[in-house]
């Protein structure tokens, strides 16, 4: 089974995000970019399938800050090839544009069986990737996937419907999946393996073709939410704060 995994870089949400002078994007100059965590789950699921039934895993990403690190790390984890889509304008890339570029790449790759990517990304203003790629290729798609298991030439897919309810379906033919969580947590690639991947692998380039971006939301402003400041902050050292918390629980009659 040949699985292509779409990965991407995303501003590290652990860091403070500032709005750029344009007022419609984040200030990208001082932000650390990391791999989208859901894409890592998608990669893990693809690698598990390869280990079960053989085949090939190709990772593909747009040329974004520090993306080489993500691609080499994917190779170190067991992906066979890495492809970078180059020639894309810097800044926020609408998910729809991302989808159309990846769809063009997938058309050029031709003989793939499944495309996996993360269920969402924190800046998916105009929709999530799997549905948009599925629609642009005319291929069946499913999101919030928590399991994809080979069943002969098909894939048995489990989706989370919310509240712990699961939906199972079987994909016979090409399929695009937005993965929420793999069957296991994403594996770790030791730095020595990543270095090895860097010296032994060449990241392939795919020149971004011209695509006509369809209609999308026109961002008028990006701004931090007004703080309602609801929480009363408990002041003091750990001993004092612990005392206050226990007291609050006690007044609710939940501890003696």
């Amino acid at each position, binding site marked *: 089974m040949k699985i292509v995994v779409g990965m991407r870089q995303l501003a590290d949400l652990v860091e403070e995000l500032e709005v750029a002078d344009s007022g419609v994007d984040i200030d990208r100059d001082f932000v650390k970019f990391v791999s989208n965590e859901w894409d890592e789950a998608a990669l893990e699921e693809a690698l598990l399938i390869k280990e079960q039934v053989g085949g090939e895993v190709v990772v593909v990403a747009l040329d974004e800050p520090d993306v080489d690190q993500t691609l080499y790390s994917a190779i170190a984890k067991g992906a066979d090839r890495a492809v970078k889509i180059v020639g894309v304008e810097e800044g926020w890339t609408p998910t729809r544009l991302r989808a159309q570029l990846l769809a063009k790449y997938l058309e050029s790759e031709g003989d793939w069986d499944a495309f996996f990517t993360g269920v969402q990304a924190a800046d998916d203003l105009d929709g*999530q990737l799997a549905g948009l790629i599925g629609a642009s290729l005319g291929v*069946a798609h499913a999101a919030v996937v928590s399991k994809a298991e080979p069943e002969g030439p098909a894939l048995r897919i489990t989706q989370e419907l919310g509240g712990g309810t699961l*939906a199972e*379906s079987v994909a016979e033919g090409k399929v695009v999946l937005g993965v929420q969580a793999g069957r296991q947590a994403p594996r770790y690639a030791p730095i020595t393996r990543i270095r090895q991947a860097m010296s032994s692998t060449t990241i392939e380039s795919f020149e971004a073709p011209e695509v006509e971006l369809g209609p999308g939301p026109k961002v008028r402003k990006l701004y*931090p939410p007004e703080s309602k400041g609801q929480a*009363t902050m408990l002041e003091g050292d750990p001993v004092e704060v612990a005392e206050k918390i226990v007291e609050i629980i006690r007044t609710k009659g939940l501890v003696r």
Partner: protein
Amino acid sequence: MSNEVLVINERVQGEIPDLTFELIGKGRELAQALGGSVSVAMIGDLSSLDAFGGADKVYTVEHPVFGSGYSAQAWEEAVAEVVAVARPKVVLFGTGTIGIDLAGSIAYREKAPLASYVVDLKVEGSDVVAVSQLYGGKLLAESLLEGETVVATVIAGSFPSEAGRSGGSPEVVSVAAPKSLDSLTLRPVAVKEPEKSGVDITAADLLVSVGRGVGSQANIEMLQELADALKVPLSASRPVIDQGWLPKPHQVGKSGKKVKPKVYLAFGISGAPEHLEGMRSSELIIACNTDPKAPIFEVAHYGTTLDLFDLVPEILEKLEA
């Protein structure tokens, strides 16, 4: 094109989700501003049709395939057919699995703009303005949606649901099932209810809940100790479950359980919208997170930015004293 606002009822089985009523209520407001009506698309299971008194019209699509479970492809074909019949101005989904599955592809097929993670909507002239929650709730984006049809996916809890429950009697329009439903490549097989486990986090009066900030599986032990000392279950946010540090029945949030304890103690939880959806109705929320700007403090009643590793041992000591 009409000025209709079409709400997609995201119910595969069981009860009609609250979110559908939220969308009908908000849809009514938008429809009034647009001079149009509100309709609901009901796919597959047609029970509780009379719940939609808040809408003017209900479109139904029936086909045997919906009896076998859920397939994104089957739902997409059915919803696309309803959209083709209704020609709505606005299509509203929730940000649940069905919304994430279908909003993008329906918008793509309709050549319509789509705004995701929406927490507010209003009409401006003949266009729609959406406010979306991005970057895990750290920023909001206001965007203009122009076009004959526009699509939005709304985060649950953004609008009151009561407004969508008023009691009228909507017209029922049966939409012929599209032929494409007979040749699906993504076949529904089954819908499985959550596995029963010894833990029921929804029944507890007090929950100790842990998030990504705990750092590792080994560190969970300290929080488990606190939960044990309080004789309550340990719950968690999604990253902890995805890492395999705690089993699924412990998960609070959109893809886990909705909880409403008297006290919710959140340690190392930043408060992503999906998590807040599952716990914001708790009577009292106490949050511990080292990031003073963490969105969890927007819903918490009490907060501290102390390190959980300094704080939890002290709480344990106080409890043992």
